[in-house]
């Protein structure tokens, strides 16, 4: 941050940002392109498909915010389960640390929504405007009817896809069939409309217009990921020892005899780069680790008859000829923490009892004596059945010998997701009380599943 500022440096930043040159990434083919496309199709398939998936008669994944319930397949989560969400976020953060330490910005290159949607928008642009050179030519040419038609159809396609994306986003919060019906009949609520437009517009802006600028100027991860790097992290690097001195030459030239390195200076690695950098200048924070330059360079090396891997995933230590092991303490620490967080998450999930019981003593009266000479206390039970099916429960009270439990109604039942308030009376023989205040434990157990037990402590008051 304390690097001396020069006016020249400012102009570079200025031109890259406000008056930036549009980057036209050239299409690539190769191993990493296949990996990236598979990741894009899988992730988008999940995103667009999941709201339509049904599970036991309801939408499989639905964050029902108005009802304050999250449905995840067979599981219903309540605000009380917030700790699970917190654990999930911790897992995500540790996962990011682990994979960044292992192989750099895997997240950015293959899984980040910005990458994924930009990729799809580039496909659409390519389909309508042609390849890199055709796109550049079209942008340079004066406005003609043909240019207008191509540009208009591109933006129409982008906008339609963005609107569908916004619709899908809202479908995670409103049942999709209902949402579709109300969209078609123009009966959407104001907030559903707002979020649909907001998310759709964000997709259009970020993937259509902003693209690499999101990574360069908006992404905090791009700036702090270097903290998780070390000299043994696998990063995409140009092997300068092998490549330099670079220079063009005829196909089949022996590099050594010509006094050149293996880099033929064809600039393909720069042309395919979605952030427009030159990987040969070393690792830069602009590099999102998409490996497009690896594919492009390997292709060129193949055509020249040279060995592949002039640009490759390797470590700084390996490039400098130092002994290097990818398995190192940092990786074990991150991996250990990650495993621990996953184990904790699984434990919380498995040990979770979808039943809640709370007991409140009647405020107006501490106790009363019944006609039969027993001491009676009155309470209200708050029961929440957080399971996704109906249960009947038995209620027991422990702590005083011969304690009688009475509820109204006597049979306690609750539907899936139902919250019930039930009045309860406890009666005990005054002679069996140990003092004015006695500890009582209440146990509520589902009849069809003894693991569904909630317990709560309260006080039984006497004279």
């Amino acid at each position, binding site marked *: 941050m304390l690097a001396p*500022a020069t006016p020249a440096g*400012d102009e570079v930043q200025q031109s890259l*940002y*406000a008056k930036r040159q549009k980057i036209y990434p050239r299409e690539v083919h190769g191993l990493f392109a296949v990996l990236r496309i598979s990741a894009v199709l899988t992730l988008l398939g999940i995103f667009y498909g999941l709201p339509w998936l049904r599970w036991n008669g309801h939408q499989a994944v639905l964050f029902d915010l108005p009802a*304050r319930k999250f449905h995840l397949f067979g599981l219903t989560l309540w605000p009380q389960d917030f700790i699970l969400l917190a654990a999930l976020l911790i897992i995500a953060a540790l996962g990011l640390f682990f994979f960044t330490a292992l192989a750099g910005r895997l997240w950015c290159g293959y899984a980040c929504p910005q990458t994924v949607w930009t990729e799809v928008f580039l496909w659409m642009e390519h389909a309508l405007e042609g390849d890199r050179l055709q796109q550049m030519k079209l942008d340079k040419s004066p406005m003609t009817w043909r240019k207008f038609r191509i540009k208009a159809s591109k933006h129409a396609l982008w906008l339609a896809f963005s609107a569908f994306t916004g619709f899908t986003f809202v479908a995670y*919060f409103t049942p999709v069939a209902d949402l579709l019906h109300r969209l078609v009949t123009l009966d959407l609520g104001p*907030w559903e409309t707002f979020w649909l437009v907001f998310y759709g517009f964000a997709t259009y802006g970020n993937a259509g217009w902003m693209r690499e600028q999101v990574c360069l100027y908006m992404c905090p991860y791009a700036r702090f990921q270097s903290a998780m790097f070390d000299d043994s992290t696998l990063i995409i690097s140009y092997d300068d020892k092998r490549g330099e001195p670079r220079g063009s030459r005829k196909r089949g030239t022996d590099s050594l005899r010509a006094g050149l390195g293996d880099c033929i200076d064809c600039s393909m690695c720069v042309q395919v780069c979605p952030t427009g950098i030159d990987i040969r200048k070393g690792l830069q924070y602009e590099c999102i680790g998409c490996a497009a330059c690896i594919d492009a360079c390997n292709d060129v090396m193949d055509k020249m008859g040279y060995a592949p891997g002039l640009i490759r995933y390797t470590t700084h230590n390996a490039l400098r000829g130092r002994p290097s092991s990818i398995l190192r303490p940092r990786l074990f620490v991150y991996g250990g923490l990650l495993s621990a967080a996953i184990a904790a998450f699984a434990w919380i999930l498995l040990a979770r009892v979808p039943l809640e019981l709370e007991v409140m003593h009647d405020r107006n009266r501490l106790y009363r004596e019944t006609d039969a000479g027993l001491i009676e206390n009155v309470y209200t039970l708050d029961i929440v059945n957080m399971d996704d099916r109906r249960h009947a429960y038995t209620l027991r009270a422990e702590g005083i010998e011969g304690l009688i439990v009475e509820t109204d109604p006597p049979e306690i039942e609750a539907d899936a997701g139902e919250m019930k308030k039930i009045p309860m009376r406890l009666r005990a023989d005054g002679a069996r009380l140990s003092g004015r205040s006695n500890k009582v434990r209440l146990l509520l157990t589902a009849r069809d599943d003894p693991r569904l037990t909630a317990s709560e402590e309260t006080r039984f008051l006497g004279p």
Partner: protein
Amino acid sequence: MKLIEAGRYVPVPQRVIAVLWISFLMAGAATMVFFAAIDPMQLKNCVDFPEVGRTAAYSIGFLLFWLLTAASSLFTTLLLYPGAPANAPDNSSRPSR
């Protein structure tokens, strides 16, 4: 003084986006934590609040959080911005136009 001289001029659009985007993320996190703990329907009993549903309450809550976090980010950038006089003869921290 050295720090201010070293500070780079950051173009306005970049500053706007840096303020809005990071505060957007933080507002999202704050909304999640806040409404997981507090049901807006219960909040309504404590404060005099117009009659709105939960979805509207979450959305308004989020936008209010965003306003708050964006204000915080904005004031931070204002304080970090070098306070050089606008008509100084040699204002090298800004690019010449």
